[in-house]
């Protein structure tokens, strides 16, 4: 299942499930009313129970969506829709036009949230269930509702539900469009942020090189020539100058080493994420505990994204959160998951506009196809979780 949902605005999906729930609940009540007024057969109650299970299923879908269990939610939505479609088609063959629309709902709902393979599988499921529904309707296993329901009622139900359900489908198409457009927009923004961040970083490196090592080395080149001149006329002074220059050269080498390390930590490319993060945590301003399980080697861009994410999270914890310690967990057992938990002040994500640091982390992980979630509450620290497939 596509993990991009966290990065996607899923309010539209919640709205859709709510509308669907209300419609289906009203239909269940309607069926019970019809049983005791116009169509006096208990098959109508069987109908009502079938539709009622969808109400329960949709309620569960809502809860799962709120808890971020999108995969389960969408599967349940499809299963409930398809089951009720088959049951209703078998009991009331005259509702077949309505059933054919209900069958399409699951595949429409999942469009913005799943990868192509799952969309295709759901599409094939839709075709299969539609064949079953039509066959069930043709078999006439039950004839009471068909026989007892007056023509006007059958026509009214079809007349009411066909346009109504088509409206619901349209809402879904619109929702999918908005969601995909937003994803495209997010990707565009993230891409330009990544380019800008990379340029900013190169400018910083140029400044650091120019203002640091280059200035020192330039001055050393001039003084080296002076010392050379002095070797014959004033050897003692030349020796003193050379000694001074040796110290300054050592400082320049140190500066260059730090700078090179900042550009790309050598341990990360040589030994991988586990050792690089352990080394980085030893240099951190706060105490860091690392738990790593089955961490192997990954694509260089994935290792670098996770590494800088951990570094950024540690820096944020020390700088903004007032933390004294942090826990880093890295788990390579199923894809690559990681989390950084600090004991700092935390914040309210709904009230804090994502700063450059948080956006940077989201962009980096997003660029390698992963997801990042930020779990923070004022007063109870911050946990940043990431997963790369």
């Amino acid at each position, binding site marked *: 299942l596509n993990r991009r949902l966290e990065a996607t605005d899923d309010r539209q999906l919640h709205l859709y499930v709510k509308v669907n729930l209300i419609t289906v609940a009203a239909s269940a009540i309607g069926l019970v009313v019809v049983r005791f007024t116009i169509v006096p057969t208990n098959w109508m109650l069987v109908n009502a129970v079938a539709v009622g299970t969808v109400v329960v299923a949709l309620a569960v879908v809502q809860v799962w969506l709120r808890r971020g269990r999108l995969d389960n939610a969408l599967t349940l939505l499809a299963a409930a829709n398809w089951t009720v479609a088959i049951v209703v088609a078998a009991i009331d063959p005259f509702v077949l036009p309505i059933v054919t629309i209900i069958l399409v709902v699951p595949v429409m709902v999942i469009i913005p949230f799943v990868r192509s393979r799952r969309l295709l599988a759901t599409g094939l499921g839709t075709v299969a269930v539609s064949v079953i529904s039509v066959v069930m309707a043709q078999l006439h296993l039950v004839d009471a509702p068909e026989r007892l329901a007056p023509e006007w009622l059958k026509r009214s139900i079809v007349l009411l539900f066909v346009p109504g359900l088509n409206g619901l489908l349209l809402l879904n198409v619109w929702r999918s469009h908005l969601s995909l457009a937003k994803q495209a927009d997010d990707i565009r923004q993230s891409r330009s942020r990544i380019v800008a961040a990379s340029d900013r970083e190169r400018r910083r490196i140029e400044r650091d090189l120019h203002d640091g090592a280059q*200035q020192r080395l330039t*001055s050393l080149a*001039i003084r080296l*020539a*002076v010392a050379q*001149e002095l070797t014959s*006329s004033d050897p003692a002074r030349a020796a003193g100058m050379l000694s001074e220059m040796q110290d300054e050269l050592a400082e320049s080498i140190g500066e260059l080493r730090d700078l090179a390390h900042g550009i790309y930590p050598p341990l990360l490319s040589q030994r991988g994420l586990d050792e690089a993060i352990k080394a980085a945590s030893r240099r951190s301003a706060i105490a860091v505990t690392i738990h790593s399980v089955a961490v192997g080697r990954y694509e260089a861009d994935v290792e670098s994204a996770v590494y800088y994410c951990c570094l950024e999270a540690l820096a944020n914890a020390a700088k903004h959160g007032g933390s004294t310690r942090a826990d880093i967990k890295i788990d390579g057992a199923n894809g690559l998951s990681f989390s950084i938990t600090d004991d700092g002040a935390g914040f309210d994500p709904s009230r804090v506009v994502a700063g450059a640091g948080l956006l940077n982390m989201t962009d980096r992980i997003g660029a390698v196809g992963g997801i990042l979630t930020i779990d923070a509450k004022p007063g109870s620290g911050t946990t940043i979780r990431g997963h790369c497939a």
Partner: protein
Amino acid sequence: MTPTVEPDAVTVMVVDDWSSFRRAVAALVETMVGFRLVGEAASGEEAIEMATAITPELVLMDVNMPGMGGVAAADVLRATDAKMCIVLVSTYDAADLPVDVQKADYRYVNKERLTASTLRSLAAEHNG
């Protein structure tokens, strides 16, 4: 070698926001007979103020400095004293300098190429 007072010495001023370069030039000029460092300035503005009092003959002016920058300061200095020998210096390649610096009518020397013989030939060229 302790520099003796040489009344005919070429007076040199160095202008750079980096003290490491000013120190290196001071060390260089100190060893050169016939040259004397008369001023060190950390910005173009400071150089203009200083130059009116000390009127150096040779000015080593860094191109990139906060404030007015080296080229603008050189223009002001030349306007006050057309005879002043102004040499622009920086760590950049000449090709990486802004067009206005490349077009400016000043000699340009890479900082790391600044040696006693460079300074002597610059002064000789200017006087000759």
